């Protein structure tokens, strides 16, 4: 099958700007995109750089953007993706490119994987033999662990695109592996860790990760399950970050008092009543807002209709939580 490969090229050594190069490739119908790239490198242009390892969809090394979609190059047949005789191959998005199709996963993926501390600390008491665990409990852990760390869910993530600090669906799927492993002894510590800013609460529920996972591991759902488990364990977001905690407390107290949000109070209490420097930082905003009538007076916040009913709901929820 004759195919035109349009391949992203970037070589910092020769100082040129990123560009696409075009190659004609004639390969059997069963050929994969990886076969095409290898053919180009071996027969036409030995300077082309890309990563590849297992050639069987087991290792995640060859994640690429192929015809505008994140895919594993080694299992994707050219015939399945070719459009009008063309296959376009680029590095995955939102990531520093090192050379051609080789990109830097260190900050994008590996550091984030490490940050969720995805290792098992044997739960006490450690048995002499294996842990006795129901198969059903481990089946989903095993499935989550079959993730090949290709990074394509992070590539598709709508949050990472604008917020590089979001730990992302790949790392949180890795966290799932540890959170739901019944042999682990650091259940709540890890849940606390991933409930911090940048963790599970920063997901915006766009479900892109599910759509981008080549293994159909449903990273978005796994992230939700980690978050739900944190809620079940009574772990509140940002408990290691007093500002986040103050923000939540103020939000709740405001709604409980007046039935809606007292924005002035929220701004002040989030910074902290004794945090002079923090409060001073609010001043310029307040000064700009006053002439526009957008600086509500804190604490003099009138109740909305139905405020009493809202208070009763909150009271009830708090009693049941206790």
């Amino acid at each position, binding site marked *: 099958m004759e195919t035109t490969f349009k391949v992203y090229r970037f070589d910092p050594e020769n100082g040129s700007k990123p560009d696409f190069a075009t190659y004609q490739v004639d390969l059997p119908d069963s050929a994969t995109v990886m076969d095409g790239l290898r053919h180009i490198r071996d027969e036409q242009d030995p300077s082309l750089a890309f990563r590849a390892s297992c050639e069987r969809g087991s290792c995640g*090394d060859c994640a690429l953007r192929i015809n505008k979609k994140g895919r594993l190059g080694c299992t994707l047949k050219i015939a399945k993706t070719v459009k009008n005789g063309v296959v376009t191959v680029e590095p995955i998005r939102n990531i520093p490119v*090192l050379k051609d199709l080789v990109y830097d996963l260190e900050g994008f993926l590996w550091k984030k994987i490490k940050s969720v501390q995805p*290792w098992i600390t044997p739960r006490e008491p450690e048995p002499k033999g294996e842990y*006795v665990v*129901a*198969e059903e409990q481990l089946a989903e852990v095993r499935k989550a*662990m079959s993730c090949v760390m290709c990074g394509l869910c992070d590539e598709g993530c709508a949050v990472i695109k604008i917020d590089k600090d979001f730990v992302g669906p790949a790392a949180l799927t890795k966290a799932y592996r540890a959170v739901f*492993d019944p042999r*682990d002894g650091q259940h709540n510590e890890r849940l606390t860790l991933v409930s911090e800013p940048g963790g599970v609460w920063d997901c915006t529920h766009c479900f892109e990760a599910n759509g981008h996972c080549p293994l159909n591991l449903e990273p978005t759902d796994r992230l939700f399950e980690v978050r739900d488990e944190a809620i079940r364990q009574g772990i509140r977001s940002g408990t290691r970050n007093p500002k986040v905690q103050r923000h939540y407390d103020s939000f709740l107290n405001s709604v409980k008092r007046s039935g809606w949000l007292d924005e002035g109070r929220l701004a002040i209490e989030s910074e902290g009543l004794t945090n002079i420097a923090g409060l001073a930082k609010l001043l310029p905003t307040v000064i700009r807002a006053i002439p526009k009538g957008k600086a509500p007076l804190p604490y003099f916040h009138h109740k909305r209709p139905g405020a009493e009913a809202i208070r009763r709901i909150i009271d009830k929820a708090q009693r049941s939580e206790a």
Partner: protein
Amino acid sequence: MPKYDVLIVGGGVAGLRAALAARQAGVQVALLSKTHPLRSHSATSSDGLNAAFGKDDSWQQHAQDTVRAGAGLCDQAAVEEMCRAASDDIIQLDHIGVPFNRNAEGKLDRWALGGHTSPRTAFSADMTGHAVLNTLYEQCIREEIPSHEEWLVTSLVVEDGICRGALALELGTGNLAAFGASAVVLATGGAGRVYAPSTASQSCCGDGMRLAYRAGLGLRDMEMVQYHPLGFCERAAFASEGALGEGATLCNPDGQPILQTDDLTLRDALCRSLASAEDGATLDFRSIGKERIGARFLYLERAANEMAGISLDTAPLPVMPRMHRVLGGIQTDTNGATAVSGLFAAGECASPGVHGANALAGNALTASVVFGRRAGSAAAAQVSIVAPQTIADSTLEDARLALAAIFSRPASEDTVVAIQRALASAMAEYVGLVRDAAGLREAAGCVADLQTRYAQVGLRHHGKMYNHELLTFYELGALLDVAEAIVTAAQERQESRGVHHRSDFPATNDAEWQHHSLVTYGPAGPSLTTSPVNAGQSA
């Protein structure tokens, strides 16, 4: 210059296990690997880990099965060490999080593999290698073990019979650096790419075997090359042999079973019978049912679909034998120690003597875990004998000159890729499942020719960053050394034993050939010696 107590070369299962063992011994250890550890070939290991558990089995029985499969070439001490230790090693892996499948009581489930007298293989679906690799990696990042990724060791620094470290090329920058160490553990994996097609990952080029070979060490039992019966598609894919124990049937194209499910044959016999089936064979999962397929064949279910367009619960999967791995390797003792002080080896690049002439399914990953751990501990103990070594600047300078010499070769019509392809197809044609003197002679001539071409071939691309042609140049050097050792040993062994099948010498000849082959490097050509098999007491 980076300097560590213990330098582990290779980030697969054996390397990571060794790194953790060294770390637990309290020494400073670092990893250096050609790919990111999670891209290692270990990720493809699908059969599981063998150990005797429960009162119906014993480590002695596991050892007996191993020795029987090994067809007279297993070293008893190594087999005993592995079979005795395996259950504790597996339990330890369970405790750090390998998600082994469970039975109805919530204990480790075990599946039946060919050549085992009882089911003793713990597994994590058909992705045990992947699960073990990921679990060990988790522990390595927990221990904050420094990891130099995408570095290729180009040579070992051996002075006065002592290994002082290694010289390595950073693939991303093309820079050379020296790594001094008290001990080096080679865990560079196999050499499957010496054949095509093969089940091996791109990285399996025998790098560590060459490093040891060029340092004067012997490569043992290299003629023993194992094929896997269940290759599928045109790629490196293969199905776990666990499929047969789980009830999948091997059929001819008419749907007639080729072997009974209760008759789990050893791999070598199975491969030869499949290879002689003219119309090919299929692996039929339909009797297993979708749910069980999903629980136990996580990888295969997906891969068969993506790569062969086959849904396992509705259609049989065409399979064929495919070169799987070289069973031999760098000769070591049961601590992974080699004849060079401070140099250890474990995993697929090493030959501690457990596989003999035919590896029992599941023993490869087991050996990587057990001997990886032992090599890591032994390497750590070396620290109390020798302080981490400083490598002389002149040594690094010599390596830079050698690298520059490669780049300054005149461009040639010939390419490293062409030589590599010619080598892999010659090996598959002449040194495959069935061999004979004429074919092996042909192969020897071919390897010699290709070595001559290799000595002259120039590079077309001279960039420093991620220069794959340069990487292939080094890998091809290793593949040629490995091929030389395989062919030399295969020519010499004029009998059939285990995976080494000679059509001109179909019988096993214990009187003359029950010994290891050992190939050592020489500038004028390899030399072959033999060493007795430590058969010891029958277990």
